[in-house]
């Protein structure tokens, strides 16, 4: 496994053999990518007035604003799906936190409940119980304000066939309440970073998968959210294409965003994520940094941990108590 340490320090975008140095692309971008905390709590509305995002009934206390360690707090989320035959506990009391400048790798085999967790945070699914909090905004109290703070990319997210990339970005800018001039600047800027310029005025139907995915990323970033949720952002992309995305995730991390990343590309995850949460059958079975996971499981890398995890049925005990379960459980 190659760890591209140079990439980490100096974000580069690799696309079609062209290596671009991001720091040289457009030098003055600091105003457009402000401190995420400030963004989150004092979001600029499109009419220019500054207004607290949070519901007036439940304002986050001042302590929250300054001492808030966690940008994302997931508290005891539960979701059961009912089919005609049985009930499936898709998510079972999952909790975790993510700090700014942290990439939380939400990993697990297919059907572990990762996507369901993300959809519940975004309010696309209604949790049976529990809640998500982003920047102190509760998903139950102000779902729309919460959505405004999140950029969401998923593998299944499509693009509008009959709109051009620019039109789509501008549409989402409007929807997220950005000002007109802001949108124009922001699109230009994102087009520069993500190298969209060649095709941004083209109809989306003609784009390649990699181009679509970069456009989706731009769409998620149009309102410069302090929180990013990436659900399989590299699905269907080739090595170079996914490398581009991961490099950009790294850049976002450096810019102070709190990021939740679901992926099956474990090598890249291992490189880019600060901490991991491993889900299996709706429960969180492991959590920690790579070092912590290594000590807990006795395994060197994520792939091995995964194999252990899938091979073993989780016991009925509380997941936190069986962190050491994978040691010697190869049977």
């Amino acid at each position, binding site marked *: 496994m190659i760890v591209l340490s140079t990439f980490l320090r100096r974000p580069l975008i690799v696309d079609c053999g062209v290596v671009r140095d991001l720091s040289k692309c457009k030098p003055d971008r600091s105003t457009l990518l402000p401190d995420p905390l400030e963004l989150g709590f004092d979001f600029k509305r*499109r*009419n*220019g*007035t500054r207004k607290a995002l949070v519901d007036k009934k439940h304002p986050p206390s001042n302590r929250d604003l300054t001492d808030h360690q966690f940008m994302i707090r997931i508290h005891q989320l*539960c*979701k*059961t*799906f009912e*089919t*005609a035959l049985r009930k499936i506990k898709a998510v079972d009391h999952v909790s975790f936190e993510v700090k700014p400048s942290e990439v939380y790798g939400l990993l697990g085999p297919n059907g572990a409940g990762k996507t369901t967790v993300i*959809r519940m945070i*975004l*309010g*696309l*699914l*209604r*949790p*049976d*119980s*529990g*809640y998500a909090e982003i920047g102190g905004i509760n998903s*139950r109290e102000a779902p*729309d*304000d919460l*959505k*405004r703070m*999140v950029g*969401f990319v*998923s593998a*299944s*997210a*499509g*693009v*509008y*066939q*009959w*709109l051009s990339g620019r*039109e789509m970005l*501008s*549409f*989402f800018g*409007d*929807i*997220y*309440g950005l*000002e*007109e001039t802001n949108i124009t600047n922001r699109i230009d800027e994102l087009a520069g970073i993500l190298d969209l310029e060649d095709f941004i005025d083209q109809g989306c139907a003609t784009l390649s998968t990699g181009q679509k995915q970069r456009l*989706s990323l731009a*769409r998620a970033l149009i309102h410069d959210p302090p929180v990013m949720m990436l659900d399989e952002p590299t699905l269907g992309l080739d090595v170079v294409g996914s490398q581009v995305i991961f490099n950009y995730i790294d850049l976002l991390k450096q810019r102070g965003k709190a990021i939740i990343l679901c992926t099956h590309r474990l090598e890249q995850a291992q490189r880019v994520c600060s901490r991991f949460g491993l889900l299996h059958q709706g429960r969180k079975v492991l959590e920690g940094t790579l070092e912590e996971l290594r000590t807990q499981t006795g395994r060197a890398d994520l792939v091995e941990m995964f194999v252990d995890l899938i091979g073993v049925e989780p016991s009925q005990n509380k997941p936190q108590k069986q962190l050491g379960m994978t040691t010697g459980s190869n049977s």
Partner: protein
Amino acid sequence: MSDELPVKSPATLPRRGAFKIGRLVLKELRETLRDRRTIVTLILMPLLVYPALSLVFKSFLLSGTIPVPSDKPIEFQLVYAGNGTEGQVQEALFRFNQIIEVIEAEGVRNGKSEAGTRSNGPVDPNETDPEKNDLGEPEIEGNASFEFLPFKEHEWRFVDDSAEFTPAQFVEAGAVDAAVYFDLEGRQPWELGKLKIFTRDDPVSQLAAKYIESKINLVNEFDIEQRLRSRNLPTGPVIGLLQETLGQPTEDEGSGTFPLASIVPLILILMTITGAVYPAIDLTAGERERGTLETLMAAPIPRFGILFSKFLAVLTVATFTAVLNIVGMFATIWAFQLDKQFGGGLFGIDVMLKMLLLLILFAAFFSAILLVVTSFAKSFKEAQVYLIPVILLSLGPGLISLAPAMTLSGPYAVCPMINILLLARDVINGSVELVPAFVAVVSTIVYSLAAIGLAARIFGSDAMLFADNRSLLEVLQRPRKSTKTVPFDAAMLCLVLLLPMNFLAIGFLSRMPSDTVGQVQLRFLMMGFFLFLTFLVVPTLIARHQRTETGSGFGLNFPRAIFLVAAVMLGVSLWPIVMSLTELWQHVYGWVAGAEAQAEWKERLIETTKPQVEMVRRVPWWIIAISFSIIPALCEEWFFRGMLLRTLLKSVKPWRAILLTAVLFGAFHMISNSVIAIDRLIPTTLVGLVLGYLAYKSDSIWPGVILHALHNAFVIFLAYFQETLMQQSWFPGEEEPIPTSWVAIGFTLAIVAVLLVFVGKRPMVDAVEDESEILESETATAID
């Protein structure tokens, strides 16, 4: 794009909401209109379909009314008669026939146009041929064989004076296609005689007449031309022509074949549907399939906003389609002169506009229905599969409405699609009746709103977004846990069910005989029974099915005494206000429609209600009390203030819930009489407001039941005992307005009572429960 953005202003949240919806609609439209498939249905269809259709119309449907060429072997059955012997009449006809033969022979020889150009020129030797220049004495070659067949192709019979029937009677009975009566007396020297044609109002008969007429015209024209050309003879037709159509002519004179007024709306509506179908599928199921819906849902817009913008986009496209189709269709009708062929004049601009409005209304209704169906589908194909039965189903009412006997009244006025089609037909015919038209429009709006509400429920549900096990019936599924109030969609379903049920009940009641007191009694009791069935039993069953606790779902808890007091006060004080409002309405109607119309309307009202009132007075008072006061009060409160208001209070602000309930209450009352009475809308809605406020504050239906029962009792028993009361000098007669002092007293009392309600405290126990329940449902329900 930038010019479409509104100018910056210190906007508030609602405007932002509207802006976002506008922005969404714009995006949906841009996406839809760039799609080739939309363009096909939107522009190409109207451009191509109407000319094609009109050609079909011309060659196929109208073939019956187009004059048949003479060589076509249609044989008419004809009789002839005249004031003379058979021989005389035959002779006249024979001459007539001979001339025709000559003309036709001449036409073949010289060509028709030549005859015209030579009219003033020197006399042509051919023209002065003695054989034909003197029509007064055509040469008859002693034709005694009487192989006589005027206009040879057809079968002729002579009717004698001594015959059993006159020629007219033959025609009227349908024994022959037409009859000809030759008047030989008093003819001018240049005349053969006068010919009278008898026809019926049926296409063949008309054709026969046209055929004879054309021959006569031929002879006349030829003769005039001849005489003008050759000599200076007096002008005038050879045969004077009279025609009489026997029997009752049908509505549209001369058409008799196809009701254009019915088929135009049907085609327009079907075409509008085709315009709406594609965007409806594409913007719901299509977006879901392409994965863009999830992204949109993750954006900070309420789901209802997303759905509503999609609805608006579909409606806009459907409206475009409607406009193009109307223009296309009317242009075709105008260009092909179809309107003339069908009788009836050219459609005016006002008819087109009215048709457009109707189409937009229908488009709104159908777009909402389409969104309900397509919201279920996860892919384009699935949506198409779902839509096929919907479109087939919508053809049914379309064909039904083609029947000429259908009128916009009774159940048809509330039957979706049929009502709009019939209304459109009436608009084209110019025979719109105000009340059924109003009912049709209002009911369509109600259905549309219900459908949008349902679509929003389906569209926003978790299962529709991601799971794949949702079926159509699952909206009707029982909740697993018991609920405090009836769920919103179940209450809406109930409302939609009650509207047609109510109509059927009214229809049934109005068919019941009511000639004797016993029958009237039965009818009143049945009325009570139906009320009980629709407004009490159905909601209760639905609540049961939804596992709603009856007590909390219908507000059966015992209220505070203050509300009971207020209810009694309002019960005795509202009726003068309501009555004066009804009178006020009459005045308003008088201003709008003119004093004459007002008087006529009032007269008609008194006329129609008088026998009813008479009957009412002969029924025992306890039956009146049960079926006009107690049962309506209990049942209507049970549904409106019980189920509906309490459900609405869970999801909308109290005043909105109260207002909505009151308007629905008023709307239901407009049609709950055997006569549809618009004048009841406003007073009943006002009473509904008071009832709603009372039920909201007291958190119980019982004060409302008391108020309702007392109020109804006052109104009905004042009529019941009117004659007795009128003998007392202080009670006003039928024609007199209600005394102002009564209204003043009622008003004062009502104000005091409403203040009492205002002061009375809403039970807080329940309010706290409400909030905890919301939290509970979100947090704790599935933990067990």
